């Protein structure tokens, strides 16, 4: 008991400092978040639920609904807003350089002249959420 009393006395200021730092970091809240929200939910909250920005939620939906069952984990993603590549958020997802599975993010009708292929003739639309589209190339 005496040892702890001494320890507390000599390190009181450090404990206060660490306590301030703990509050600054929201440490306890962060631990609470870890137990409350799943990793997926935290990713959705960080990168977006559905269509917009990086459109993590939309690409995740396409990945789980259309790619995982067929085991062809390849996508060609074109984002018409300036954002980093959503591809990298999916470690197993490869770049579809033949552009068979095509995802257009934040795509508006006036963006058609920005692409160098005929979307209407070459592709069939499989899924649409707001301004995000999933196309598959016609055989």
């Amino acid at each position, binding site marked *: 008991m005496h040892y702890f009393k001494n320890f507390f006395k000599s390190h009181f*200021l*450090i404990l206060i400092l*660490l306590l301030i*730092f*703990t509050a600054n*970091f929201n440490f306890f809240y*962060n631990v609470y978040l*870890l137990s409350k929200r799943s990793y997926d939910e935290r990713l959705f909250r960080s990168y977006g639920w559905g269509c917009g920005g990086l459109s993590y939620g939309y690409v995740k939906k396409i990945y789980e609904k259309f790619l995982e069952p067929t085991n062809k984990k390849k996508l060609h993603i074109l984002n018409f807003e300036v954002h980093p*590549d959503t591809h990298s958020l999916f470690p197993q997802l490869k770049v579809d350089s033949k552009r068979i599975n095509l995802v257009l993010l934040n795509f508006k009708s006036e963006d058609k002249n920005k692409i160098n292929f005929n979307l209407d003739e070459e592709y069939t639309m499989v899924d649409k959420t707001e301004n995000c589209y999933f196309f598959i190339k016609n055989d």
Partner: protein
Amino acid sequence: MIEFINIIIQTALFFILSIFPINNFTTRNRYFYNNYFRFIAVNILILMSLLLIFSFFNIKLKTVFFIILVLYLFYFLINFKSSKFLIKKREIILYFIFLLIFIYSFSLITAYPLLGWDGIATWKIKSNFFYNGGNIFEFYNFRDGEPHYYQYPHLGSYIWAFFWKNSFIEFEYLGRGFYHYIYIFSLFLFIHNFKEWSNFKKVFLILFIYIATYDFELEGYQDYLIFSLLIFVIDLIFNYKKKGFIFLVIFYSICILLSWIKNEGIIYACFLIIIYNFVYKKDVSRNLLFICLFVLSVFFQFYINLEIYNGKTLFQIPTNTNVFTEINITLLKNFFLIIWYFFHSILKYPIWIINLILFLLLHVYKQKKSSEINFIKYFLALNILFIMGVYLQSPYIKWHLQTSLDRLVLQTSGFYIYLLLSFIKNKKLKI
């Protein structure tokens, strides 16, 4: 809660891999005497060097982990000597605080697993590639016939993938945690030099530097690795008095590691080697083997970029060398633009306020000129030249300054803070 337990396990893994193979049971080197932080620094360098070597071979990340464990165990058994050196009670609390601050920091990136722009666009792509068993000699990101981001070195991403793969739940942030580990550790390595300070003063300064340098927007970036390695190297310069063979091995290892983390790491490494040979008036022939090794390592990187990836440039943007042939008003305007954005960066990373005060005090108090102070002064001069050289020739200078100058400023900020040590050691100023 499972994730939090995994954070603790991963922290334990980082700690175990950094207290082996060199420790008080396996070495008698005076550099390490009474300073367990230096053991950890050297062990981190050994780990990073091993990972760099393994990254050139097609070996699975889990196998690499087991090879490293076996190597460490083997080394420990061969070199085991009994040791009387024990960590002082006063210091144990510092190790505890180090782990505590690291867990705080780790929990932050776990709760908000958000990466910065380059983290997503560049480094995570590379990391994914290694995580999936990729090899450096393959194209890791092939788009419309062109490899993307081939000119960025790979070591940081390989380390990320290594710890990501060798974790129980395999979430990417568990790999990225190592960046925080080495960054926070480097602050403790610096602070441990103030032997006469109370723990409160030490912790206070650590927390100040942490707040003055940490930026959540740089999650997934490599800048903190460069920051930490530069602290490792200046700590070595200040504290390794007899600059013999072991010193050279550690010094040049850091230079090689820097060159495999980011492009600017090559430039910093060149500065360090030039200044070292100049300041310590060393016979260059004595270092020739190490210099050759470094040059070979850099050329190997260029070879991979140019020949294997068939890249067209080593650097990230096209250059505009015409700027230097015509000294005109644009050049002057650009010069002031760089100064302007440098002050922006100071506001972002206030550690530079301390650095600038230290440089000012150095000038005012006319410190006794030591090799260490000269080392820092020459590095600053070359760094200014480098920054001017990079930005003055940039065709998109404003965009370039806005997006990257703050990071260049951050990378070297820890290096200059060692001036504080020279003031304390000389006892001309009492802080």
